């Protein structure tokens, strides 16, 4: 049913529901908002009262309007309206959908889907028969379906990773019998594979044809084979058109789809190719599994990388590093030959290995010297590949890091006094990793080192001259390989280094470093590569279907992806070869004039309004709910809310710069040594006493224990990081300011994470009494009342604190007596028998006492006590120091001493 030409309702009869709107209006009008319920004991007193103004027991008109609107929207939404005109059918005959479903259609597959959906819904209304012909996998005869079945068939339709075969599809279509001349809609991918106008002509013979193609600027993109460069990948992106600028980015993805690096590309107007440089360090680059064009989901915009594309780090070492005559030096040729596939480091063995080289190339080094010999032997045994080139030095004196025994001297061929002509290379044996490489005729060898004949020489030989003498020999040593070229790396002995074969051979040798077996390498004509994973049209990896056939090695470079060989990785776990969609020579050609007018995909022609209307109705109902709550008195005052928010914001502003001021110097100092620390109370005399006391204690610790504390540090609880200090000394003084919330949470965190605070209430220093009303204790309550303190108990006689270093039973400081409190220990295990010492798990987070220890520990520069102790005597000061040492040892070693005191018992038990 269509209104106003553009608005269509799928279920028009539901609109009848709008009739009930007046009824809803009436009901809502008479129902007052439900009252708030309050229990109120003096109800009796209220009963006689009349509210001076009875509430209008009606809903306000605007609320009413809101609700009616919501109801109307729901009714409208249920009628499933769509805006826009459904496509007009072309005619009355059967409808044929000729769909290009190659990878080139994948990037805008949604457009195809909506076009197909529109066409099918049109066909369903008209009751037309439908045939769907996917051009990329048209195999069987075309079946003519009704619109409903066609809908299901269309849902199965997906792009594939090869190119369509339109000619095949057209010929199949031509064989199909239709009741009348069909209307053909060709949903093309906009590309011409050289036969577009022929196909258009062939289709026109079957019926009337309409062609859809991507709008200009939306044609597919493809990735050309990347080139692997020293600093990353260079990727060429091609497009089908040349008009207009277009830009985007390409990304290198790892094996799990993680983005390793991205690079932008931009097509200039008039160009169909653009370059992107993805910069990646070598280690990361070898992790790259594929390169994709971002936001272009198609197999053509995806390049799979196989192990061949991995770059190796190669160390190149030569006897002479002089570079004054580059064209004569081995290094020059080796560098040029290795550069396409490897990162070459020149220099010493250690330099190369420090850069994680997996291949070492030694040019004309006869004897590897002492330390280097050990290093290289280990390198090979651990899986490295050592490639050596012969040279004048090797004819005289050779170490044993060679695959075969060599005869001293050498062999001259084709010299003035020689009988023989320079030798050519023989074809590579099948066991050689070089197999399959073509041997150019012009490569000759005029000098070489000779291998000592032996029984196993044959199996070590990878390449021979035509007279059978080995040219390349190799042997496995440990996990690694040693490969010897019996000629020089430069053109002095042969012209092999001047040929392309040299590059290929070195490439194969580099692959040894990836752990491949020589027999797996090379593309032996008979090797079969089964499909390992394949790409679908969108460029997503999937398991290969049963259709996918293995590839023969000899076909690998010639194969284009097809239904039988989809693009993807071929081979076995660990050694795979990539078959990519787009080759170096491939191009994307736009479909030109094919004799039929080409229309663009119009995107969605009809826009469904239902979700929009429903969400609008939901929003209105939510607003209504909020308003209803407000009317019923669940009020919130927006001004108060605003005020609170602004206070919060202000507080955050004020706090932030404060906390952001990280004092690096302090942290560095605190972290580099274990310092004793005290809390800066802000009361100068107390702080000075703390510093002097800890300094004194430090001196005693230095003298008597193996712990040598550096100068004690004062800690500002507000700004400093407490995490560095195992022990904090904190004297209490009524003049101390209250702590900020941040400081409190810091203290709590410190105690939670294993820090120990020694709190000194300094009872007799501050007043005449001990106990609850003492100023120190009251300060403690004021400062730390809000902190989560563990349950405390007076130090029990068997507590580890009494045994951590000295054996102590009381803990005097400047004053004697009083109790020292620690975290309550778990009750002793009755089964364990009498334990000489007990400690909890870890260290007590607080030790609280009131004997003003700092004053007792404090010494002046001459080492004399600063403050007299009371009741007095050297013994009391000594005991105070011993307590200090015990506390520090306790904070540093925890319950270690508890274990120590069990040692005799343990020894006794093990002795039995």
């Amino acid at each position, binding site marked *: 049913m269509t209104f106003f030409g553009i608005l269509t309702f799928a279920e028009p009869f539901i609109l009848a529901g709008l009739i009930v709107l007046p009824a809803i209006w009436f009901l809502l009008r008479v129902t007052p908002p439900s*009252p708030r319920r309050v*229990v*109120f*004991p003096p*109800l009796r007193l*209220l009963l006689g009262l009349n*509210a001076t103004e009875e509430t209008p027991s009606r809903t306000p008109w605007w609320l009413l309007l809101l609700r009616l609107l919501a109801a109307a929207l729901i009714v409208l939404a249920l009628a499933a309206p769509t805006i826009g005109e459904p496509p007009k059918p072309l005619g009355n005959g059967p409808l044929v959908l000729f769909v290009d479903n190659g990878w080139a259609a994948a990037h805008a597959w949604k457009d195809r889907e909506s076009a197909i959906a529109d066409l099918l819904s049109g066909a369903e209304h008209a009751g037309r028969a439908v045939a769907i012909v996917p051009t990329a996998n048209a195999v069987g005869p075309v079946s003519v379906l009704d619109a409903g079945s066609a809908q299901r068939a269309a849902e199965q339709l997906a792009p594939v990773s090869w190119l369509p075969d339109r000619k095949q599809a057209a010929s199949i279509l031509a064989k199909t019998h239709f009741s009348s001349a069909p209307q053909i809609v060709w949903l093309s991918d906009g590309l011409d594979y050289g036969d577009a106008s022929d196909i258009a002509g062939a289709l026109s013979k079957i019926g009337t044809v309409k062609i859809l193609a991507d709008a200009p600027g939306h044609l597919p993109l493809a990735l050309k084979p990347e080139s692997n460069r020293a600093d990353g990948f260079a990727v060429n992106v091609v497009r089908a058109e040349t008009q207009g600028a277009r830009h985007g980015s390409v990304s290198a993805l790892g094996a799990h789809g993680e983005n390793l690096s991205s690079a932008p590309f931009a097509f200039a107007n008039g160009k169909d190719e653009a370059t992107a440089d993805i910069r990646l360090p070598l280690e990361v680059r070898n992790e790259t599994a594929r390169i994709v064009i971002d936001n272009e989901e198609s197999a053509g915009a995806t390049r799979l990388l196989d192990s061949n594309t991995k770059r190796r780090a190669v160390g190149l070492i030569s006897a002479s590093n002089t570079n004054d005559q580059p064209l004569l030096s081995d290094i020059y040729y080796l560098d040029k030959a290795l550069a396409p596939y490897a990162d070459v480091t020149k220099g010493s063995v250690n330099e190369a290995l420090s850069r994680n080289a997996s291949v070492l190339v030694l040019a004309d080094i006869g004897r590897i010297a002492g330390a280097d010999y050990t290093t290289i032997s280990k390198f090979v045994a651990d899986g490295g590949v050592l490639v050596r080139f012969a040279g004048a030095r090797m004819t005289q004196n050779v170490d044993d890091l060679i695959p075969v025994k060599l005869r001293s001297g050498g062999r001259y061929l084709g010299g003035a006094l020689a009988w023989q002509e320079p030798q050519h290379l023989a074809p590579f044996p099948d066991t050689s990793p070089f197999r399959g490489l073509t041997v150019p005729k012009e490569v000759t060898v005029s000098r070489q080192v000779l291998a000592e004949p032996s029984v196993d020489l044959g199996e070590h030989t990878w390449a021979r001259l035509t007279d059978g003498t080995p040219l390349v020999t190799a042997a496995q040593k440990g996990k690694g390989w040693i490969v010897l070229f019996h000629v020089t790396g430069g053109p002095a002995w042969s012209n092999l280094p001047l040929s392309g074969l040299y590059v290929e051979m070195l490439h194969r040798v580099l692959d040894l470093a990836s752990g491949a077996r020589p027999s797996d390498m090379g593309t032996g004509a008979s090797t079969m590569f089964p499909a390992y994973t394949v790409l679908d049209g969108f460029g997503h990896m999937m398991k290969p279907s049963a259709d996918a056939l293995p590839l023969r090695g000899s076909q690998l470079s010639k194969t284009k992806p097809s239904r039988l060989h989809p693009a993807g990785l071929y081979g076995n776990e660990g050694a795979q070869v990539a078959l990519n969609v787009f080759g170096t020579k491939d191009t994307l050609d736009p479909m030109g004039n094919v004799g039929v007018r080409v229309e663009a995909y119009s995107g969605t022609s009809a826009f469904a309004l239902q979700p929009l209307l429903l969400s609008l109705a939901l929003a209105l109902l939510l607003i209504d709910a909020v308003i209803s709550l407000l009317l019923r008195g669940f009020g919130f005052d927006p001004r108060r809310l605003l005020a609170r928010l602004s206070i919060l914001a202000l507080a955050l502003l004020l706090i932030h710069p404060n906390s952001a001021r990280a004092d690096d110097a302090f942290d560095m100092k605190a972290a580099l040594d274990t310092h004793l620390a005290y809390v800066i109370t802000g009361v100068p005399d107390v702080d000075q006493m703390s510093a002097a006391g800890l300094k004194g204690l430090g001196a005693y610790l230095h003298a008597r224990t193996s712990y040598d504390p550096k100068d004690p540090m004062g800690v500002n609880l507000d700004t400093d990081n407490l995490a560095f200090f195992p022990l904090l000394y904190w004297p209490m003084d009524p003049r101390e300011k209250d702590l900020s919330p941040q400081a409190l949470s810091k203290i709590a965190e410190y105690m939670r994470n294993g820090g120990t605070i020694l709190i000194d209430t300094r009872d007799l220093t501050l007043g005449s009494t001990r106990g609850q009303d003492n100023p120190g204790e009251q300060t403690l309550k004021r400062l730390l009342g809000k902190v989560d303190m563990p349950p405390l108990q007076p130090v029990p006689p068997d507590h580890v604190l009494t045994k951590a270093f000295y054996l102590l039973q009381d803990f005097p400081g400047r004053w004697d007596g009083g109790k020292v409190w620690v975290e309550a220990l778990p009750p002793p295990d009755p089964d364990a028998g009498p334990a000489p010492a007990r400690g909890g798990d870890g260290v007590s987070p607080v030790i609280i006492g009131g004997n003003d220890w700092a004053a007792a520990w404090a010494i002046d520069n001459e080492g004399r006590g600063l403050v007299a102790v009371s009741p007095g005597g050297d013994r009391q000061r000594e005991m105070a120091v011993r307590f200090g040492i015990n506390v520090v040892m306790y904070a540093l070693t925890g319950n270690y001493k508890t274990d120590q005191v069990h040692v005799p018992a343990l020894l006794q038990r093990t002795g039995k």
Partner: protein
Amino acid sequence: MTADQTRLRDIAEQIAAGLPPLLVAAERLASVISLGVHGRRKSGMGENFWQFRRFQAEDPSTAIDWRQSAKSQHLFVREREWEAAEAVFLWRDGSAGMRFKSDFAEVTKIDRASVLTLALGSLLTRGGERIALYGDGRAPSTGRAALNRIAHELIGTPSDETLPPDAPVSKNSTFVWFSDFLSPLGEIETTLRRLARAGLSGQLVHIIDPAEEDFPYQGRTRFESPAGRQSEIFGRVETMQGAYRARFRAHAETLRDLSRRLGWGYLAHRTDKRPEVALVALFEALGGAEAKMRIA
């Protein structure tokens, strides 16, 4: 286990859970005030010296004050001042309305009333007075046991009576009545007169939830009685605030007049105020009438 036993156990657990904090709260309150036993200005049981008198034949020989007797020819007996303790009956309203707590108060009225009752009881027992929970059928007694028994009664088996029942009392005792006094004024007056006739004098402590006095409600509201039997809907209740407050004030005034006419004291206490204030005021009121007290 029978249903009765289960119920008993539940109650016991309830007591165990509720008793200590309540008692402690009451004790803490009471520790603010210290007091003495009131002397009766005549000889009898007591601790303070009253007079020496000549030994008579019926006196036990242990009563002879030998030190005094040695000063003269006669034997003397030391007499002490008779210190009689008061009997105080406490009664707390346990009606459903007392269990009300508005958003503006921290405790229910019944909790506050219980705390005050126990705190007063604690004070009284420490002063040597005899106390009893009115209507529990026990004679007034003194000491911690009495206090514990009252706590047990208040928490374990709370009565839900709105007004004090008819129960035997000893004459010339003091009666302290904690309630929200929201029963009809007529009923309250009848009860009060009955108690006065029985020879009791005392104190009404009017426990008020702040919402009951201030009426801070707005908008369309359905007011329900605590028992849920009655309800009434009012629109725009903020407009009723003035009238309601006047009515509540008048109600309290009437109560005060009534108590004054019968020679009783009246004390209003809002549950958002500190209970110590009420306790001190209560003690002043009781002490002013009955005994010498020192407010610490």
